[in-house]
């Protein structure tokens, strides 16, 4: 479903991705780990089409067509979802308005009917419960004054409402307490399905105890430098990243 081939990208004047390759098939869960500043978030942002991130080489094919051709909103409508590492606050726009607009846009793009307000509110409340967010978070401004963990849960809430086909979770586990970690894991596991691809960016192998990945990759200096199964995560946890440096060098 997602095929990244020799991807080069820069932010402002800094080249960050230097020939990254990755293939995600439907039904697979990929974990990406790697040191700070390696380019993990950059990869997520490039895939989601964030302005300012410039692709300087390589290709990204999504469901058989060129993903990089699409505008950010069209990527979202085509089913690409990025759960942000640092979700922005949008004061004055209520979470509910925002969610409804987003669900409407994506359902329309999928050729489905728009949901009635009543149905939507019901659904939103239900999902709120699933991610353990009190209902009144729907009334507050988008992420406004949310704690770090609440923001992450709000990202998850959106993901569950939008039912994307490619989910990219950028450190959705960072800053979560143990209970919340399980909430996230449950949410992601619930979305696991044969026609959906999932990329989980994380620093902690702990999350992978709950979300068992099919593959683990190490992203360092803008490239996938090592790939393996679950056990790779355990090894990273034990030895850190330096041994990979040596191996790659």
């Amino acid at each position, binding site marked *: 479903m997602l095929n990244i081939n020799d991807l080069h990208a820069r932010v402002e004047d800094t080249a960050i991705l230097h020939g990254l390759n990755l293939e995600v098939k439907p039904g697979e869960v990929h974990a990406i780990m790697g040191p700070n500043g390696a380019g993990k978030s950059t990869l997520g942002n490039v895939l*989601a*089409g*964030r*302005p300012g991130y410039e692709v300087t080489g390589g290709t990204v094919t999504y469901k058989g067509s060129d993903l990089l051709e699409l*505008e*950010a*909103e069209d*990527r*979202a*409508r085509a089913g690409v*979802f*990025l759960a*942000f590492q640092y*979700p*922005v606050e*949008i*004061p*004055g*726009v*209520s979470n509910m*308005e*925002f969610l*409804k*607009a*987003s669900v409407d*846009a*994506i359902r329309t*793009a999928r050729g489905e009917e728009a949901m009635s307000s009543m149905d939507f509110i019901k659904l939103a409340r239900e999902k709120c419960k699933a991610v353990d967010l009190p209902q009144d978070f729907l009334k507050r*401004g*988008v992420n406004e004054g949310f704690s770090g963990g609440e923001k992450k849960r709000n990202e998850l809430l*959106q993901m569950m409402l*939008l039912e994307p086909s490619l989910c990219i979770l950028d450190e959705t586990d960072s800053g979560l307490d143990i209970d919340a970690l399980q909430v996230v894991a449950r949410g992601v596991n619930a979305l696991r399905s044969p026609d959906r691809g999932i990329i989980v960016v994380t620093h902690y192998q702990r999350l992978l105890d709950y979300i068992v990945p099919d593959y683990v990759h190490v992203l360092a200096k803008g490239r996938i430098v090592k790939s393996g199964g679950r056990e790779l995560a355990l090894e990273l946890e034990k030895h850190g990243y330096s041994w990979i440096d040596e191996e790659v060098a």
Partner: protein
Amino acid sequence: MSDPMQAEQAHQGLQAQSDWGWLKDWRASAWSQFAATPWPTRKTEAWKYTPLKSMLDTEWSLAEQPGTGTGTVFEDWDRTVITLVDGKVADHDALPEGVTVRLLSKATPEQRAQFEDRLSKTLAGDQLFTTFNQALLAEAVWIDVAPETVLEKPLHINQVLSSSANGRAVPVRLMLDLGGRSQMTLVETFSSESDGPVFINPVTEIEVGDSAKLTHYHLLLETGDVRHLGSVQAVLRAHSQMNSFHMALGGVLKRKDIVVRHCGSGAHLQLNGVYLPKGKEHVDYHTTLEHEVPHGTSNEVFRGIIGDEAKAVFNGRIHIHKDAQKTLAELSNKNLLTSHKAEINTKPELEIYADDVKCAHGATVAQLDKGSMFYFLSRGISRQEAEVMMSFGFINELLETLDDEPVKQLLRPMLAALFAKEDELARHLV
């Protein structure tokens, strides 16, 4: 003596109708002051960005017979309404206990003496159109709320310009004296059913007594060829609280001078406002916070979105007098320009003569935040829709701070309709 607005005849006519010597003198002194004031130009600091040329194109007369109109309608809101059409009281609900209303036009001899006392206290200062109001004042509504009165229902002053107000100048004055430890909500709305040109010239004077609490809305909702030039002057006594919300929507020319004086220590002011000119509209808010005594706090937030060929002016002055130690005063003014022909002029001013104070102001002119825009896009929301939602959100942030649900319910659809020209887009906003 000059009469740039061709209003002398109106003034003289008004004077001729009255037998109240004191009132005539009071008006005459204002007239001479008005006539002696040089007509503002670009060089006049207070009018630097607001040309008054358009005020000179009409020979303004006073309405003899008020027309009819209903004005702003609040659905399902239990309130006490006083409706003024073309500056004359047309209708009013029964007044709750503790509230007295006196009308300048119907003052009994005893009330005349009280009016003389009250009106002598008010200061026009150098506000040109407060002076004009005094010179041509035919009606003043004076509301007195006894101490320790808690009004359950808001008091709504519903000012309407009728379809027969074309060519009229409508000076009108509202005075509210809120007694010590009393609490109430005052809602002033201004609307118009006139094709214009029409010139509404309202002055609102408020005194919030010791430890009293006032929630105040001053909503300029007139559309079309309405020129609204007026002022709000408030005095805060010790430990009182005033929460005031202003809004200007539509109309060719609006200028409001808001002056709030901290005269008793320990008072708190929250002053918020929103202006949304579009088309060729012009809005100008001049606010002044006078901290005359120690221990006062003020927080002021004004936001504007200026579209099409519209112009907005904001001047927010904070003046800390010599002895006003321990004052905390803050002002924020944020603006969005949404068109290449729109214009904003803003000037937040601090004038400080006491050292142990904390004052700050900030002003921005910007576009919608790019990071937020990407968040919308990444959730599949179109750019156009995101712009509408973010613009609305920018204003809604202030609306959300309002205590009164009915006011919100009145304003939200108006704003939604303003931002989202298509209903399609409005649906997420209301």
